[in-house]
């Protein structure tokens, strides 16, 4: 009988625990998906540079994704979503310790991706390549300061 109570109690408590673990701040998931979309878009653009014949349509579509996603990055790091929140993250505490620098980095990304979208609209491959390089630089710059290096 006692065993039954333990099982019954566990059955009631377990979903509650898993609900807590399964419902972290949605910012974690949102920013992960957003960054992945940006990574895919970046690859989509650089792939075209390497292919025998580049597709301007693909470059334009991916620059649009980048420009849109870039604007969301700044809002994806609310307080309490850093390391230590119980969710695996590569975000460094520097994001919250140096908010002005982080804002400058995300602004740089927004400017660079807007520049790339403008270059893509022009259809000038030299301009597009330079602008894509600037976007890559802004990714890397921010990752160097605010993202945990890969082991």
């Amino acid at each position: 009988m006692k065993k039954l109570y333990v099982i019954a109690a566990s059955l009631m408590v377990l979903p509650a625990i898993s609900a807590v673990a399964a419902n972290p701040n949605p910012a974690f998931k949102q920013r992960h998906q957003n960054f992945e979309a940006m990574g895919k878009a970046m690859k989509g653009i650089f792939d075209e540079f390497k292919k025998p014949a580049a597709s301007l349509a693909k470059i334009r579509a991916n620059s649009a994704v980048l420009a849109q996603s870039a604007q969301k990055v700044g809002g994806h790091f609310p307080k309490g979503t850093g390391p230590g929140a119980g969710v695996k993250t590569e975000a460094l505490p520097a994001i919250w310790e140096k908010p002005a620098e982080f804002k400058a980095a995300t602004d740089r990304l927004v400017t660079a991706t807007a520049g790339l979208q403008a270059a893509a609209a022009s259809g000038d491959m030299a301009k597009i390549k330079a602008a894509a390089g600037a976007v890559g630089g802004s990714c890397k710059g921010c990752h160097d300061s605010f993202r945990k290096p890969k082991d």
Partner: protein
Amino acid sequence: MTDQVQHVKVVVWDIPVRLVHWSFVALLPALWWTAETRQMDLHFTLGLTMAGLVVFRLMWGIVGSTTARFSRFVAGPKAISRYLKAPEDNPVVGHNPLGALSVVALLGLLALQVSLGLFAQDTDAVDSGPLNHLVSWDTATAASEAHGIVFNLLAALVVLHIAAIVFYRIVRKNDLVTPMISGRRAFATRVAQPALGSWIKAVVVAMLAAAIALWIGYGVPPWGAKFPWEQTDTLQDVPAADSYM
């Protein structure tokens, strides 16, 4: 030279095998270090050099000196157990049946590791392997992860390889390192000198391997990329500013 009484010295490892072997020894730590410190340009150059050497060694394993040929030293489980029961019975000129496993595993893993690296990408999707643009994001991500795992396997095999050399040196009193440097090894009984691949053949195979590595490095033109001498950007769809969006 006709002194056949004792310690007949024969060339077991030809110069190409030795050069490739010691290049692996130098390149593997360098590749690890350049990846660790994110010097990706150097990592790509060294990785393609590694690719060329692996391709050379695989081809040399078909047409090279007899001790380099896979068909001559790769043996089945029967031969391995026979060797393990009586390792000193017949002197093996070249790889013994057990050592052959190590050669196949190391070369196979090196080939796999180089292939994975060609498709891998870093997290920014900017520093990518020369064939990364031919596969999807998900495939490239999987290749990148496997590139990290296979390195660990490779490192474990290298440790095993070195441990085996130490074992042969201390327990068997058999120096395997010096022959890999000088090429020559002394045998107590009379053994036949292995047939060595000619210089010309080695140069031809090396040039072929280098050409294959370069071709991969440029993204396998004309299918995967433009030839490096085609400078102008070819657009698949004609830019028409007014039709945009």
